[in-house]
């Protein structure tokens, strides 16, 4: 059965359950922007111009992921995804791969810029919480939601820089994927939530109601640094260092480079930095108290 979802404003039809995404709430007769179909996928791309251990690309429009234990996934031109699952594939893993790495590839192919970040609205202004896996992006977003902020994206902050005069954040959804320890910390009962992964205790947490499709100017991007010592702290990063730092937080940056996106990414990040978005390093040492302090500190970036 095909389901329809809203993916950062686009209509996505999928043969696979994608519980991370909000259901499509627009006209059902609308043609899909992106289709994920079950089908046969060749083990390699014909005349691939980049071959890595897990993926291959040809030009800017073809990407093949061959992931043992999950299957083969072909992504074409930012709109057509074909999945041939392995016989032992786990449905939740497949779903997480489609809404994670494959989503990133779709955006790169469509010429948009996905940052590895959650996005919250603080007093109506968009703030991206950037970080690698396990940095605490979703946890901090949930903590800010508890303080009255609205979550508008988890894990991918989608930047549209195609209009040179207006770099904007395209909102996603308010559903966060969180591990049990983080839910414990914010006082949410994991047993009442929908499971996000089979083997690991990760769950979906809905923070607020449906997210409006209104785009936002990015006010600030915070790089969450957990590999740190000392106390919670914020430090502004300026100019070329801001661009270079954000580049490390491009979602799926290696596939993006193989798809020929590197020069475009640099141009988009430069425009983003010069559009008024401030960039900060947020130092968050280990420990629950530091997370609490960090959540209280984040809104101060808007005073700069």
């Amino acid at each position, binding site marked *: 059965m095909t389901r329809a979802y809203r993916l950062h404003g686009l209509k996505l039809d999928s043969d696979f359950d994608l519980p991370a995404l909000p259901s499509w709430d627009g006209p059902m007769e609308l043609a899909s922007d992106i289709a994920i179909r079950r089908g046969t996928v060749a083990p390699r791309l014909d005349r691939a111009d980049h071959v890595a251990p897990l993926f291959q690309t040809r030009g800017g429009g073809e990407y093949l992921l061959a992931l043992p234990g999950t299957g083969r996934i072909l992504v074409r031109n930012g709109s057509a995804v074909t999945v041939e699952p392995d016989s032992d594939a786990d449905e939740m893993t497949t779903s997480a791969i489609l809404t994670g790495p494959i989503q990133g590839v779709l955006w790169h192919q469509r010429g948009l810029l996905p940052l590895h970040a959650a996005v919250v609205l603080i007093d109506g202004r968009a703030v991206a919480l950037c970080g690698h896996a396990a940095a605490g992006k979703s946890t901090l977003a949930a903590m800010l939601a508890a303080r009255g902020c609205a979550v508008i994206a988890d894990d991918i902050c989608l930047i549209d820089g195609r209009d040179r005069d207006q770099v904007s954040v395209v909102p996603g959804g308010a559903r966060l994927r969180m591990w049990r320890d983080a839910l414990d910390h914010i006082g949410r009962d994991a047993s009442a939530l929908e499971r996000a*992964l*089979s083997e690991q205790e990760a769950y979906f947490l809905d923070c607020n109601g449906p997210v409006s499709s209104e785009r936002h100017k990015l006010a600030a991007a915070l790089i969450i640094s957990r590999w740190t010592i000392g106390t919670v702290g914020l430090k502004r990063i300026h100019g070329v260092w801001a661009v270079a730092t954000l580049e490390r937080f491009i979602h799926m940056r290696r596939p993006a480079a193989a798809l020929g996106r590197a020069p475009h990414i640099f141009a988009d990040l430069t425009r983003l930095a010069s559009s008024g978005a401030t960039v900060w390093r947020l130092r968050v040492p280990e420990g629950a108290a530091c997370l609490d302090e960090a959540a209280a500190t984040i809104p101060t970036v808007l005073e700069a």
Partner: protein
Amino acid sequence: MAGIWWLASYPKSGNTWLRAVIASLVSGRAADINSLDVLGSNAIYRFGFDDGLGIESAALSFEQVTNLRPRAYEVWAAEAAEPIYCKTHDAYRATPAGEPLFPAAATRGAVYVVRDPRAVAVSFSHHSARPLDETIARMDDPHAVFGRAAGQLYQQIHEQLYRWSDHVESWLAAPFPVHVLRFEDMHADPAGAFAGVARFLGLPCDPERIALAVESTAFFRLQAQERATGFREKPYKAEAFFREGSVEGWRRVLTAEQATRIAAAHGAVMQRLGYDLRLAPSGEASDAEQRPAAHLTA
């Protein structure tokens, strides 16, 4: 290809000390405990895995991640301009898919640091903030893992330790050059031990450089650095990373029964490495034999 030198050990056996020594040997400067990653990535650094392969490990099963680790190491090795030094606490082992976790094609060799398991038990117990008896049992658990919990996502990928003896034997049998370094020898003759490491790794081993490595990595200096600036690799629950670093301190902490239990479980490998199984080194009754220690015995 520059390739990877594995810096391998069971936890709390002197791996960080070794990394500080190598950092000093490579750079010709005094070691800085918070800049050890200049040597290369930790073998289980999650971002290194994700970025190297262009995937998200958080979405994958534990088995998928382990099966893909050799591919990540091949990428790291292929892209390194200089040899890289990767810390690991994994046993040398096969992935569930049946290939070596540490692929020979990406490997230059390994330095394996080993420490008397009685001292490891005491240090590991403090490091993990777990009781000694539980730690001793963990060191004898063939399924022991490090850094894996279903309800928490770590910045590091989990490691498989096995039993302490099996860990040691796995690395001694690895199919590439392995330089075995006893923690106790690093203590007794640091200059000789570090020069041996430098020769094995093809690093400068002139007396001045060795002397700098010895001087700047003396335990009290590493301890002082941690007190002054903190150490970002210290587990949140541990009081200090560089705690005591002693060779014989276990005699004050373990009960005779605990020490005997470790020797009974791992005696064959301990003897192979030259560790005296007797409780008292000179035939005298040790502190441990005279009084059971309540400390950390739960």
